[in-house]
């Protein structure tokens, strides 16, 4: 039972084509639950240009994937390392990871709380 450990929400913004690799890396550190959202990112990385009937312009947002994983404190660093490694290409636009401490977790199916809910 790790219901007493503090819990964290790890939000990673990554390149879409890295999703599979990151998921694999997370499974390797025994994290099997996660939630994924399609987002658009603005940042240093610049998009391609598109043309439509004479109008040419730079697409300034880029498709990214937001990956949210909730884990207890003891596994936080392992997850951070796993994501950072797996999502890395070294080129501008690789993305960020944010960690936010969580007050409470509930598993809807069982009403279990916190660490037990994961």
């Amino acid at each position, binding site marked *: 039972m790790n219901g007493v450990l503090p819990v964290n929400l790890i939000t990673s913004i990554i390149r879409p084509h890295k999703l599979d690799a990151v998921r694999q890396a997370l499974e390797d550190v025994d994290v099997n639950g996660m939630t994924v959202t399609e987002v658009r990112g603005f940042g240093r990385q610049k998009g391609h240009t*598109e*043309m*439509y*009937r*004479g*109008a*040419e*312009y730079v697409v300034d947002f880029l498709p990214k994937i937001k990956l949210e994983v909730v884990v207890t404190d003891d596994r936080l660093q392992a997850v951070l390392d796993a994501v950072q490694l797996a999502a890395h290409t070294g080129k501008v636009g690789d993305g960020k990871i944010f960690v936010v401490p969580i007050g409470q977790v509930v598993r809807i199916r069982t009403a279990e709380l916190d660490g037990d809910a994961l």
Partner: protein
Amino acid sequence: MAPALHAAPLAAINKGDVAWMLTSTLLVLMMSIPGVALFYGGLVRAKNVLSVMMQVLTVLALVLLLWTAYGYSLTFSGGGAFIGNFDKAFLDGISASSQASGLPEYLYFSFQATFAGISCALIVGALAERMKFGAVLAFTVLWFTFAYVPVAHMVWAPSGWLHTLGALDFAGGTVVHVNAGMAGLVGAALLGPRMDMGRTAMRPHNLPLAMVGAALLWVGWFGFNAGSALSANATAALAFVDTLLATAAGVLAWLGAEAVFRKRPSMLGGISGVIAGLVGITPACGNVGPLGAIAIGALASLACLWGVNGLKRLLRVDDALDAFGIHAVGGIAGALLTGIFSVSALGGNGGNGFGMLHQFGIQALAVVITLAWSALVALLAGLLVKWVYGLRVSDEHEREGLDTTVHGERAYDD
């Protein structure tokens, strides 16, 4: 299009001709729906796709009934130079056994009806994404009555002024495309640009949809062009091969130019080339040979490429889907080039007495008359509708999109 001859109503009708013209008529209908509806629908933003499709469908339905009420009669009945008479209004005096141009008159009527329908439907492209639905209908009805009908009469009726002058417009480059494109430009100028114009990108929301529309336009256009022979004969075959090859040339010319100047040939370019090639060959397809058709398709395509780029920047009018930039520009190019490539030295069937310069002059005259007439009618019609009813939806409606605000529904859902 051969003029409507009513001389020999008792002659035997050839069933092969009927078969082909039945097919041609439904092909031209297919050009409007789903053809133009898809083409335009794919090019607007997702929040306005239903509105343009609605406009195309409703304008078509309306014009079909108006064609019945007075359009057909004013166009093809009577011997005036500028306009016909009301003798056949509401199909008066016509029965299943009536004949026109060697066809059952009901069929000839239907074929011509679909031409009127698509001409009006084309205008919608220029006005897209900001006009009141009622205003689109009112504007179109006025333009149909005072511009389409007289121009069609002038060019196609045996007694029509431009017809007697000798203007060549086999399938309607001037009557349909130049005419409608000009009306679109004037309408768009009166309306003003879409609110986000220049600030946000107005990307096509679904290019595959637009591609399917363009493809069905190509397919349907054989009804338009080869159908204008009004018979399953050698002229139809000539118009057919010309339409096939000119379009291929139109595609390659546009894509080639994009490849050279922008490095990346685009789908929107490819389908624009389809339409440009088709518009260009429309007036010429019964007169020029296949090699001439290839030349016309390529040249019209390049003209339209300029029409939607350089010319568009010059005109500074938000002709949203390039009704003018493609249909009018391509129609003008085609009309003028018809004068050139009809000469027999270039493979055309102009015959011995054919004078290229002379014909070029007549073609130019027909274009100018059509442009002026259409512009004037569109201006007056637009101002009238603006004054009586208003042209534009509110900013809030435009921002939210016409689909939900005007038609109460959304195009896509999960």
